[in-house]
C-alpha cells in the first residue's frame, strides 16, 4: 500500500531532487568549474595511467638523471633518471586510490556510526562520542605511525590507516546532520505512519545525510593527500618504487639545491589538486550548510 503523504510535507524524492538541483544548479562560477576540470584530469590520469602514452615510471635511465624540464623528458627526470611526467601520472593513481579508500572507510564506518548515534541517541550516542573524544586526544601522526607499524606499508594498508583517522570526523558530521534531519516533518510523518526503523534510516535519513557527507569527503580527500605526503616525508608511506606525489616530493628534497624541479613539480601538482578539492568541497559544503564547527 502506498504511503499517503500530507500534501504540505515535502516528499523525500522532492527533497532529494531539490538537493541535486542545488548541487548542479547555477551560481558556482568559473573558478569552481576550473577546479572540477583539474580534478577530472587527475582522475582520468589515475584511471588510465597504464594506457596513456607516457614512459615507464619505474625505468631509470641514469643518463637522464636530474635533467630539467623540456630536455630529454617533458618535465625532467628524477634522481634515478626516471621520467617525472610519467611518475606524476602514475602517482595520481596512488593519491586517488588512497584518497578514495581512506575517505570511503571513514565515510562508511564513521557515517554509519554517526547516523546510528544521531538517530537512536541515548547510551550508544554518549558512548560513541566519548570514544571519539578519546581517539581525538591522540595526535594523529602517532596513531598513524602505530597503525603503519602494525599493518605495513602496502597501498591498501596505508589507505586503511589513514581512513581510520577519519572515522571521528565523519561520525560527527553524520551525527550532526542526522540530528537535524530526524526532527524534520517528513521523518516525523514517516514515523507516525509506522514505517520501520530500518526503512526510515535508509529511505529518509540516509539520502539527506549522504550529500553533505560526500561534500565533506572532497575536503577530506585533500587532507588525506596532505597526510600521505607527511607520511612519505617521514619515509613511511607506500613502499617504493610505487610513485606517490608525497614520495616524489621527499625524493626531490635531496636535490632541492641542485635540481629544484624534482621536488617542485610534484609539489605544484599536489598543491593544485588539494586546492581544487578544498575549493570544490567547500562550495558544495556551503550549499548543504555543513558547518566546520560540527567536525
Amino acid at each position: 500500500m502506498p504511503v499517503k503523504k500530507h500534501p504540505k510535507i515535502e516528499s523525500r524524492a522532492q527533497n532529494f531532487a531539490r538537493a541535486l538541483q542545488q548541487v548542479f544548479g547555477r551560481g558556482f562560477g568559473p573558478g569552481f568549474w576550473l577546479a572540477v576540470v583539474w580534478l577530472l584530469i587527475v582522475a582520468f590520469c589515475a584511471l588510465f595511467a597504464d594506457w596513456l602514452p607516457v614512459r615507464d615510471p619505474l625505468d631509470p635511465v641514469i643518463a637522464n638523471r636530474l635533467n630539467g624540464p623540456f630536455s630529454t623528458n617533458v618535465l625532467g627526470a628524477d634522481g634515478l633518471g626516471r621520467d617525472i611526467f610519467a611518475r606524476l601520472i602514475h602517482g595520481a593513481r596512488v593519491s586517488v586510490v588512497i584518497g578514495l579508500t581512506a575517505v570511503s572507510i571513514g565515510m562508511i564506518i564513521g557515517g554509519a556510526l554517526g547516523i546510528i548515534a544521531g538517530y537512536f541517541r541515548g547510551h550508544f550516542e554518549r558512548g560513541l562520542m566519548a570514544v571519539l573524544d578519546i581517539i581525538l586526544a591522540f595526535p594523529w601522526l602517532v596513531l598513524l605511525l602505530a597503525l603503519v607499524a602494525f599493518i605495513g606499508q602496502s597501498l591498501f594498508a596505508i589507505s586503511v590507516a589513514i581512513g581510520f583517522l577519519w572515522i571521528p570526523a565523519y561520525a560527527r558530521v553524520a551525527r550532526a546532520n542526522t540530528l537535524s534531519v530526524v526532527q524534520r516533518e517528513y521523518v516525523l510523518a514517516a514515523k507516525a505512519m509506522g514505517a520501520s526503523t530500518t526503512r526510515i534510516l535508509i529511505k529518509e535519513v540516509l539520502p539527506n545525510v549522504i550529500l553533505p557527507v560526500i561534500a565533506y569527503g572532497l575536503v577530506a580527500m585533500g587532507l588525506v593527500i596532505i597526510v600521505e605526503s607527511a607520511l612519505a616525508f617521514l619515509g613511511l608511506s607506500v613502499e617504493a618504487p610505487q610513485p606517490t606525489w608525497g614520495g616524489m616530493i621527499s625524493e626531490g628534497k635531496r636535490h632541492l639545491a641542485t635540481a629544484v624541479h624534482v621536488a617542485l613539480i610534484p609539489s605544484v601538482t599536489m598543491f593544485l589538486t588539494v586546492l581544487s578539492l578544498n575549493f570544490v568541497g567547500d562550495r558544495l559544503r556551503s550549499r548543504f550548510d555543513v558547518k566546520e564547527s560540527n567536525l
Partner: protein
Amino acid sequence: MIGRQGILTSGIDQFGAALRTGLTCFAFSLLIVSCSPAGQGGVGDNQPPSDPGTPMHGGHLRVALEGETNNWLPGRGNHVAPAALTVAMALFDPLIRLDHEGRFQPYLAESLVPNQTFDQWTLTLRPGVVFHDGTPLNADAIKWNFDNLHKRQGSVTFGSIRDVERVEVLDDLRVVYFLSKGIVPFPDMLTRAVGWPVSPTAVQRYGDEAGLYPVGTGPFELVTWRRDDALELKRNERYWREGLPYLDGITFRPLPDEDARLASLISNDMDVIQTLRQHIVARLRGMSGIHLYEQIGNSSGSAIFNAQRPPVDDARVRQALAWSLDPEVLIEVLGGRGISPVQTQYFNENNVWYSPRAATAWPQRDQAKARELLQSYMSDPQRSDGKATGEPVFIELMCLPEQSLIDLAQMYQALWGAVGFDVRLRQVEQATQIQSAISGDYMVTCWRSSNEQDPYIIFSNDFGPVEGQPLNYTNFTHPVIQQNLEILQLAPDFETRYAAVEQILLLLAEQVPNTWTGSTPAAVAANPRVRNIKDWTFPDGRMGDGMPVAQVSWAQVWMLDDDALEAERAAREGDE
C-alpha cells in the same frame, strides 16, 4: 530575503587568489633556490691550506652532527655511529689508536705488550692522568670499567669482548687482560668503547643517570647536555697532554636533516659540520668560502644476502645478483658520478689490506653473465626455492625508510629486474631491520658496513660460525675463511696476514655473500678559521689516522681569531 549568494558566486576570484598566492610562493622559492650559494657550480675554492699554520689557543667551536647517541656511557650507549664516535673523541681518550700506517699505537696507555701466545696482554698506564672529576686513572679504574661496564650481560660491548675472560690488576698502573685464546689484533678492541676509560667514582655517583654525565679523561669536559639540542663542553684544564686542547669549548648539535645542517654552515650558525652522504659531499665540493676535509673510509653501503634463505642460499643467484649491478650507477644515484670510488672489497684502495687481485675478481657489470647464472638456477630441477623450473626468481629487498637508501634500493630493483629477477622492496624501520637481521628473518637487506677494524675482527664477526656469532648476519661460513681466520688470529707478521686476508677476499668475490656500492666518503666542512681537523698526532709526534668516518680529534683543532684571520689574508694577498 537578504541574499547570501553573493558569497557563493564568482568563485573564480577566490580560486584565482589561492592559485596566485600558492604559485607566487613556489616561484619565489624557485628563484631563491636557483641563486642560492649552494648551487652546483664546479669545484669551489675550498681546500684547507696544506700547512695549517701556528696553533693558537681560545675560541668556542660550534659543531653540527648528523645525530647523537642515546647514552654517553661506554658499554651502555650505542657508540658505533659516526656522530657518537666524534663526540667521544672530545670526552674520552682511547687507550690505543691507529697511526697513519694502520698500526696500533698506545695513546692514552703507555704500552700494551702481549705474551708469547698472545693470550695475555699487559697494559701500562701513564702516570698522573686524572678523569674530569679528579679521580686518578689507574689499574683499578681500568678493571672496574671492564667488569662493570663491558663484561656484563646486557652491555652493548659484551659481544665484542667475548674472547676476553678477565682483567687483573698487577700494580697501580698495570693490568693484564686474559684472553680465552691468542689473538694478535687484540689491541683493536681497545680503540673503541671498551678502551675509553670512564671515572668509576662518577658512574657510581650518578647511578642510573651516569649516561647523562660522561666523565672521561678526554680533552673536554661536560658542561650541560640538552638531549637533541646541544652538548656543551669546556676545556679540560687538567688534560694529560701538555698545552692541549687549543679550544676553550665546543658545542655539539645534532641536526639530522642533511640540508638543514648544510644550511646552518652557510648561514654561519655553525662552524663545523660533518656528513657521510654522497650528495651532500658533492655539494660541499662545489662550494667556496669553506674548508672541506674528506677521507674515504673502509665503510660502504652494501646489500647483504641471507645465505640460509632460498633462493639466495644458492651461490649462482648471489653471483647473478652481483654481476647485474653497475656500481658506477649506484654511486651516481647516491650522490653523483665519481663522488667516491667503487668499493670491491672490505678495504679501499688506500688501505694496507687492499687486494688488487680481489678487485679484479669482484663481479660487476656483466648482464650477460648474470642472465646465464640466473638461467642456470632457474632451469635447475633441484633449485632451492622449490619452484618449478623456468619460473622467475623472487627476491625481497629490505631497506630503511631513508631517502638515499630508498633511491638506492629502487636502483637495485631496476638493475636486478633488468636481468630477469622479480624484485620486491620492503621498507622497514631500523627497529625491525636490526631484529630481522639478527634473527635471520630476511632475504636481502640494505646494510652499511663499517670496516675500520682489524681484518681478524671484521671477518670473525661477519663470517664466524652461525651458531656462536650473532654478528654473522649473512649466515655465510666457509672452510677457507675459517682456515685463514686462524692464521689472522695468531700470525703476527704482516705478509702472512695479508695473504690470508687476500684468500678470504678472493673467496668472497666468488661467493658474494654481500655486494658493495661506493666507499663512503667521510667529510667535514668547516669555517676557514677552523684549523687542523685532520692532522692529529700521537704524543711522540707520530701522525694519526686522520678522521675515519669523520671522527675528528678535537684536542688538536684550533680556531683563528679575527686578527689572525686578517693577518693571514693580508699575507696571502701580499704574496699575489
